[in-house]
């Protein structure tokens, strides 16, 4: 099972096991992780599952769709070049070891 490391805005980290095919958001909420709200349940409609993808991983993720791009502009925390919506990151074996940083706020 691919592992994901979430780094909270305060610096502490959580390592979780994701199931193949679920999204990074689903893996995080299934493990009760704080810092991802996912108010819309993964429908790419709320921007409360915002993450900053660690530099080394960014290019290895599938490109973002227009709706994700537009939503990120409205994310509560600052949008950077590393910003993605975790509900749109589908976990595959190639993403084993993925590192995602959490913003200080989601709303």
């Amino acid at each position, binding site marked *: 099972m691919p592992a994901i490391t979430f780094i909270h805005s305060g610096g502490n980290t959580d390592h979780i096991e994701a199931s193949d095919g679920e999204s990074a958001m689903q893996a995080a909420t299934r493990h009760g992780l704080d810092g991802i709200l996912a108010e*819309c349940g993964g429908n790419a*409609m709320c921007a409360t599952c915002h993450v900053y993808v660690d530099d080394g991983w960014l290019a290895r993720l599938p490109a973002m769709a227009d*709706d994700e791009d537009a939503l990120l502009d409205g994310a*509560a925390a600052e949008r950077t070049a590393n910003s993605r919506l975790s509900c749109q990151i589908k976990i595959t074996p190639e993403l084993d070891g993925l590192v995602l940083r959490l913003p200080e706020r989601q709303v």
Partner: protein
Amino acid sequence: MSAASSASTGGPPAVPHLDVDPFAVAFFTDPFPTHDVLRDAGTVVYLDKWNVYGVARYAEVHAVLNDPATFCSSRGVGLSDFKKEKPWRPQSLILEADPPAHTRTRAVLSRVLSPTVMKQVRDRFAAAAEERVDVLLGKRSFDAIPDLAEAYPLSIFPDALGLKPEGREHLIPYASLVFNAFGPPNQLRQDAIERSAPHQAYIAAQCQRENLAPGGFGACIHARVDEGEITATEAPLLVRSLLSAGLDTTVNGIGAAVYCLARFPDQWQRLRDDPTLARNAFEEAVRFESPVQTFFRTTTREVELGGAVIGEGEKVLMFLGAANRDPRRWDEPDAYDITRRTSGHVGFGSGIHMCVGQLVARLEGEVILSALARRIARIEITGEPKRRFNNTLRGLDSLPITITPA
């Protein structure tokens, strides 16, 4: 409640037939025991009263919502099948549409109600919430439905849309009509449609470009015409969607939250201790009460769902409220818990038609509950709450309360 099974011919398991009427006043008064019956009877049930299939478990409701190619909306999301019956009003271009038509109109409304736009209106919505609480603190004893659940959204939403000051008294009756009309041809629906003419006339006029103030959500929709994204005849119908779905829903959502917080003082105390829980307290009320209780889909082909086979052209009723309390999905489903992880509830739907106004609803819910929690110590119910009956919406007509200032 009797549950007879249809004759089995050795094929897929028979779908249980139930004599439940989910559009009867007796059901609206206390739907929860019947929700249990519906969920426990099977993955899919058949309701003889209206000749429709029903799904009440979370898994099946979620599956139907997320397969719009099989479970379509263009034949109506009420009982009426638009393939057989003329819609009572011109069909909605978003709610009652399928891809690719839906994709285009949805993109327009998503942009008009985006998180970026919410950042722009937040301060205004929050200031109005404080003003509403000022008024309520002046009264101390009042009816929380008209004076809070209705008054607060009415103080912001029509202005945010850019509506004229005149005629706003038609807004709630029109929405109530729309949501009654999704139901079967019962008294509620017939009466609503019979009295609809003045409300429809107001709405039709108010959706026109010249009647919408610049900068409002309505004008923003019309501005998409200039970009070539929608036509000049489509724009008024998309404004109509916000007028239909944007006010009465939040009235019932805020009403649900206040009713929960008044009924469960321990949860009120938690909110008092940490008002940043306001947003989740609202979300949990949407799960717990499910202000929008049901919607239909129509099958576009024969389909297997939860082991049952449903033929083409069948209406399927989704019990959102029952899914939101399905013990197969939720721990302690009948507890109102403002710290619950609510993500995944279907109170706003799911999939491509999931509420396009969900950010507006959450913003309203958050700022009003936060203002209440910071400035009020106690809420006491001082009279018998009265229910308002509607074929789709669940909420109260009257909730007499007394508040104690913090």
